Each structure stands twice: as C-alpha cells, then as structure tokens.
C-alpha cells in the first residue's frame, strides 16, 4: 500500500482544496459505476460518476476538470468514442482511459484513435488502476 500512496501522491494537478487526485467515471452500467467508484475511493481518489458521454461533456462545460477520466465505450445518448473526440476538441488534455468489455481490435482501434491515452478491458482491477495512475503521473510530469 506504500507504493500505492506514493503513486497517488506523486501526481500533480490535484484538487487544491483536498490535495487529492480527481477522477470522472463515465459509465451507464450501475454495477460498474458502483464498483469503479468504490475502487477509486479505496485508493484515495476523489471521483464523480456520470451516466453517458453527454453528461461527461456537460460536467466539463460546467468548469470542472479531472486528472483522470474513465470512459466506457457503449453508452446511450453519446458513446465513449464521440465523447472522447468532443473532449479533445474542447482542449481537454488530461488522461482519458477507455474501459470496456469489448476485446475485438477493430472496436478498440476507433476508440483509441478518438483520443484515448490508454485502454483497459473490463473488469477494472486495482492493478489495472495502478497502471493507469502511473500514466496520469507521467502525463502530469511532462
């Protein structure tokens, strides 16, 4: 757990009031929302949950910024590909990681090309999250 804290505390761009990394979970599935929220919370990461890509855009338009966005692929209203493209077009440069149950390369390729920094196949685990957080830290240091 010491390595975990070191990884989390080493990331710049944290919430200035709480000094914690912030994350946005974008997923329409209630089971995944609950688990990912708890997973991030257990690592000391402040996080917010929205149910589709449009809500992710709206929350950014309200002025909020997150160190990390966990973006599901298949969602109603606006899917992860479209949401990622729009966020990048808005100038959002923070880490966006695609998280989906898809494993076929052609589906993933379009998602990655939309502007992802990383892609992880569900289920999300602590070790996958730590790998993601390393990317967040590396990106913050650049």
């Amino acid at each position, binding site marked *: 757990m010491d390595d975990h804290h070191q990884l989390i505390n080493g990331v710049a761009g944290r919430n200035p009031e709480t000094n914690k990394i912030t994350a946005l979970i974008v997923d*329409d*599935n209630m*089971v995944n929302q609950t*688990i990912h929220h*708890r997973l991030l919370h257990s690592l000391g990461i402040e996080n917010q949950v929205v149910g589709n890509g449009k809500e992710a855009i709206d929350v950014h338009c309200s002025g909020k910024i997150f160190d990390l966005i966990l973006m599901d692929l*298949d969602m109603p209203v606006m899917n992860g590909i479209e949401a990622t493209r729009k966020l990048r077009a808005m100038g959002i440069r923070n880490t966006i990681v695609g998280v989906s*149950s898809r494993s076929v390369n052609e589906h993933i390729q379009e998602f990655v090309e939309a502007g992802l920094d990383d892609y992880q196949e569900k*289920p*999300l685990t*602590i070790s996958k999250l730590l790998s993601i957080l390393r990317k967040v830290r590396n990106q913050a240091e650049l």
Partner: protein
Amino acid sequence: MTDMLPAAGSCRVGLMSQRRINLPQQTAREVTGYGDRRSPPPALLCRGSKTGLPVWMLGLGADRLRADMNRLLALLFHQGVLDEQFLQLQQLQDESSPNFVSEVVNIYFHESEKLLRNLRGLLMEREFSDYKKMGIHLNQFVGSSSSIGAKRVRNVCVAFRAASEQNNRAGCFRALELLEHEYCYLKNKLHELFQIEQQRVLAAGIRYPMQN
C-alpha cells in the same frame, strides 16, 4: 456445459426481483439477551432466546460457518462460476462499507433480470430483427458480469453476443436458454453464500458479545 451443472432449482426471472439479500437487523445482544440490565445472567450460561442453545455453543458455530463459506467459494471457483474478480469485490469491503459485496450483487441481480426480460421480449417478437438492440443489452450484461466475477454468465453472454452479431436467431434462443440457466445457478449459489455469511456474522457476534 449444462450437463456439468447441478439443477439450478426453482428460479423464475419474474419472481427473482422480489428477493433481496439483507444482513440481519438484530444484533447478537438482542438474540441472546446478554446485556439486559434488569437481570443479566452470566453471558456464557444464558440461552439464546431464538435458538435455545447456550451462547458458548452458538459462538463455536462461527468457525464452522466460515469453513462452509470457504468450501462453497472453492466449489464455485472450481466450477468456473466465479473468478478472481469476486475476490476483488471482497477486498473492497471494509468497516466503512461492510455490506459492499451484497449491495453490488443486489444491484447486479436487479439489472440482470431487467436485461433477461428485455432479451426474451426481443426474441419472442414475431418480426424480431433488432439485433443491434440485443447487442446493447448483451454488452451491458457482459460488462456487469465480468465486473462482479460471474465468469460463466459472462462467457455465455459473449457467445450470445456473437450469435446476435451473426443475426442468428436460433443461436440466440439457445444462448438465452443457457444464460437463464447459468444466471439461476449463480443467483442460488450467491444467496446461499450470503445466508451463510449472515449466520457467521451473527454467531461471531455471540462469541464476542459487546461489553456494557
């Protein structure tokens, strides 16, 4: 695959949503009468008001129940019903969120039964052709099943999704039958697991009753 599984038992999708896993509301103190300020008998000699057994015997049940839970979990892992992702859920449960696993699993049951009704409803349509909608439901099912470690259900969903992508209606029907069977078995076993856990928590509370 179904030949390897024991009978799922009575399990109807429509009735399943009425079952909910709840941890016991009563504390060990309420069950055993220990801590009653009017006439507190020695804790170890008083009889549990619910079971009639001496408290010390109830306390010893906690170890047996833990062994029962471990055996059931080992069986479910061996059968491929659950995978290591279920252990990840258990690791996320702690004092600040003591019912996390049962809460997530309840959400999973509720969502899954909606999806199963939707899938069956689609396939039963006379002029069914909306394989895209079926694929959306199945993506949900794959995602949530893999997130709680429901390995067999997930695998059947993946096969179901493949049949749907080929517009194979007969294949979809076969996959739906298998999915309902696997889901029933999973739900029955998880109910059994949580019931043992409830009994174990109660028995452990009796063994280590709260001090006044």
